[in-house]
């Protein structure tokens, strides 16, 4: 088992493997996205209260799920990278941050688009929106810390420490924001009733969530391949790879 992990985590082997997987991941992403969008925009029935505008949840909710999921992935790989000094794990932490920030931004923008007809304002200091905004700041911190340190090996580990501190803080921040809001405004904000969602609405949502997950893996692999080439540019395998391509 350990042998398999070490083999897969070695940069040259992973570079090749990720290259093989890429077209498949791309195809699955596109298929799932098409199916999910068709299901969400056409197949799912209109909501009796919110009309057609509820359909933005098919982008918003999966994006919000992914924004938290990716931070957890970053923290887990950060721990792996710090404990076992696996270079690939460090790279996963670093490469996930921009994707996670993208999903967070997407969730914020779609949330505010949905908020305009529903709440009558582009921005409401709703607990979930606010903690999502703070999550965006956390992602931005990780990205700019990585950009600021010129030695990328050191930068990778600094980011790993920050991601671990962040993941301890996220629940604290989330619940404190939730508490702050409920005490300030009371439950005037409409929320989704998760259990009472129609089955025909739920299935496209789950398909979209899956599509976003596969998309994450796909774009992560693309970023990882570039990152690995960049980090290992002085090693033999990168040189021979470049030589092979030239011929």
């Amino acid at each position, binding site marked *: 088992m350990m042998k398999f992990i070490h083999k897969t985590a070695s940069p040259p082997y992973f570079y090749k493997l990720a290259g093989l997987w890429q077209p498949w991941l791309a195809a699955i992403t596109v298929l799932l996205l098409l199916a999910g969008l068709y299901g969400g925009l056409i197949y799912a029935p209109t909501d009796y209260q919110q009309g057609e505008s509820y359909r933005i949840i098919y982008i918003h909710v999966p994006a919000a799920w992914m924004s938290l999921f990716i931070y957890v992935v970053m923290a887990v790989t950060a721990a792996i990278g*710090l404990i076992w000094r696996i270079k690939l794990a460090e790279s996963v932490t670093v490469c996930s941050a921009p994707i996670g920030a993208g999903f967070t931004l997407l969730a914020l923008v779609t949330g505010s688009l949905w908020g305009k007809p529903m709440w009558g304002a582009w921005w409401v200091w709703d607990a979930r929106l606010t903690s999502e905004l*703070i999550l965006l*700041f*956390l992602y*931005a*911190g990780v990205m*700019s*810390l990585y950009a*600021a*340190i010129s030695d990328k090996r*050191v930068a990778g*580990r*600094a980011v790993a*420490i*920050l991601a*671990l*501190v962040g993941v*301890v*803080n996220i629940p*604290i*921040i989330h619940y*404190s*924001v939730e*508490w*702050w809001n409920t*005490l300030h405004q009371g439950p005037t904000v409409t929320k989704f009733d998760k259990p009472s969602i129609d089955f025909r609405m739920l299935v496209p949502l789950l398909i979209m969530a899956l599509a976003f997950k596969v998309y994450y893996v796909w774009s992560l692999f693309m970023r990882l391949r570039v990152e690995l080439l960049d980090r290992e540019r002085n090693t033999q395998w990168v040189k021979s790879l470049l030589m092979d391509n030239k011929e």
Partner: protein
Amino acid sequence: MNQSSLINVFVALVKRDLLLALRHRAELFNPLMFFVLVVTLFPLGTGADSKLLQTMAPGIIWVAALLAAMLSLDAIFRSDFEDGSLELLLLNPHPTSMLVLAKVFAHWLVTGLPLIIVAPLLAVFLGLDSSLTGLLLITLLLGTPVLSLTGAVAIALTVGLKRGGILLSLLVLPFYVPVLIFSTNAIEMAASGLPVMAQLWILASLLILAITLTPWPTAAALKLSLS
């Protein structure tokens, strides 16, 4: 060479940092002046409506304290990093996390405690009800050490960088959100006559959490910055 115990080293380190701070009194006063200045700017910006200021007072004082604490963070490790004494500190046989705790404690005595001493004056400036001043001080007493402790992690990560200023605020401020929320909320609740023990307990538990957890990542980040 005699092996000194951890307690002795801890006390010696705190004494040394306090002495250093006393010799650089100007640096000591700068965060304090900043704190007073920011609070003074608010009435100028929002108008001197005493009712408005009264409701905003806890928020203004706490946000100003947050910014002042953040600006003073740089002093924890910067000068030691530049003259090389930080490297000697890491060579010390005692656990680095404990030494970090000593340095942060000394830093809090120098920068956090003066904020608490000035705060009643600012509360008067903003017309905060005098019965609430005590509570404001308690929240500051529980909250500002948390700011120093969590800020130490971020400053340890960025101490090796030439321009860490803006980056530091991006790293630190999201972590300050819970302290801000619970402190200001406690004062607002008390103003409307509600019990505030829950908020104070949460602030106390945040403090204990910060004391026990943050020295490790700070020590790890320092080692990384010096490598």
